């Protein structure tokens, strides 16, 4: 709890902070948890696990047709074969955007999200507006993100109601011919892999 204590030193503790601290103390004293292990988990999410993993997966799929086929065939297996430092569990399904079809991922019942490849979900993904509207008015949700797609594009919403996790494989922006995987990865935003955004235009990347 050292870092935790330090952060809050001298500040007024909210009811929630106090309640969570009590919870941790009880669980520690009961022998169920080790606060030092908690520190490492937090550190991993703050420093190691995040959308850069997914971005590298997407960039490789853009760059390497064989990898793309493997990814669409079995997401977990393909990503595990990359040997990332952050491990990827089972049930990852990659879904491909095309000119005819745009994919969006949501979890209406709670907030399931592909942590292994995208890190922890943003607040909006876990919010009632997103969870309620994504399955009914996805174009309205896209408008909230400033994204407008052609009226003819099929909108395909994936509600994560089981332990499967979905990663959107966005379309590779034109004008990136001959780019390296590393450079392509810089175009891939978190929101593009959820389906609420598009990759950055090439001119935004140096």
């Amino acid at each position, binding site marked *: 709890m050292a870092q935790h204590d330090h952060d809050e030193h001298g500040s007024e503790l909210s009811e929630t902070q106090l309640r969570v601290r009590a919870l941790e103390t009880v669980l520690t004293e009961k022998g169920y948890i080790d606060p030092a292990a908690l520190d490492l988990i937090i550190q991993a999410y703050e420093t190691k696990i995040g959308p850069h993993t997914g971005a590298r997966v997407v960039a490789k799929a853009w760059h390497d047709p064989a990898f793309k086929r493997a990814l669409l065939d079995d997401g977990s297996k393909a990503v595990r074969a990359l040997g990332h430092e952050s491990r990827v569990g089972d049930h990852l399904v990659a879904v491909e955007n095309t000119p005819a079809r745009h994919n969006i991922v949501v979890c209406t019942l709670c907030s399931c999200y592909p942590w292994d490849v995208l890190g922890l979900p943003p607040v909006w993904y876990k919010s009632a507006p997103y969870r309620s509207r994504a399955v009914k008015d996805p174009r309205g949700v896209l408008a909230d993100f400033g994204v407008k797609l052609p009226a003819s594009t099929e909108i395909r919403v994936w*509600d994560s109601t089981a332990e499967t996790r979905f990663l959107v494989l966005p379309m590779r922006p034109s004008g990136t011919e001959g780019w390296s995987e590393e450079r392509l990865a810089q175009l891939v935003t978190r929101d593009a892999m959820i389906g609420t955004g598009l990759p950055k235009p090439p001119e935004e990347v140096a």
Partner: protein
Amino acid sequence: MDGVHDMGGMDGFGKVQPEPNEPVFHAPWEGRVLAMQRSMGYAGAWPIDASRFAQERLAPQAYLGASYYQRWALAMERNLIERGYAGADELSSGHALRSGKPLARKLTPDLATQAMTRGSFYRQAQTPARFKPGDRVRTKNIHPPTHTRLPRYARGRLGVIELVHGCHAFPDTMAVDKGDSPQWLYTVMFEGKELWGPDADPTLKISIDAFEPYLDPA
């Protein structure tokens, strides 16, 4: 249960509000809650389905008023108490007043990062899959008072099997400690108008992942 957590298609929550440059955690306690949850999960204290079911049983106004990690904390307290891992007196006093209950294992620092990979929910199939891609199915109109992963908006609706994900632990029984009761899991795709009526966006298709007991042939 037909709780307020089952909010797919509910109107009135307003616009989605993205937060630019959002931090991983908005306060240190959020990280502690996340890590405690993973740690208790590693220890085998209760399945993830029981965490979800405990959140669903929060009073609707409390559910809507709480943030994501607040809901987790409230659900964790409930599971600790209901399953005899801690007493309400201990949580309110902030200290253990009795010794702990045995757990299968404990997450120590040397195991922390490797334990962060999600577990597998695959299970050995007991029977062949009843459906294959392209099959037409109708979701059942069920309203169990306990945990289920068939959302209300997709009940009693006609869909098509799109993917077969193999055989998985069944959340409906896991959440109430009735075993993993392995079931075939399918992605079932619905046309927007089948779910939302004739005025739905004609380009809209929605899928859920549905366990075999949720489905009838159609």
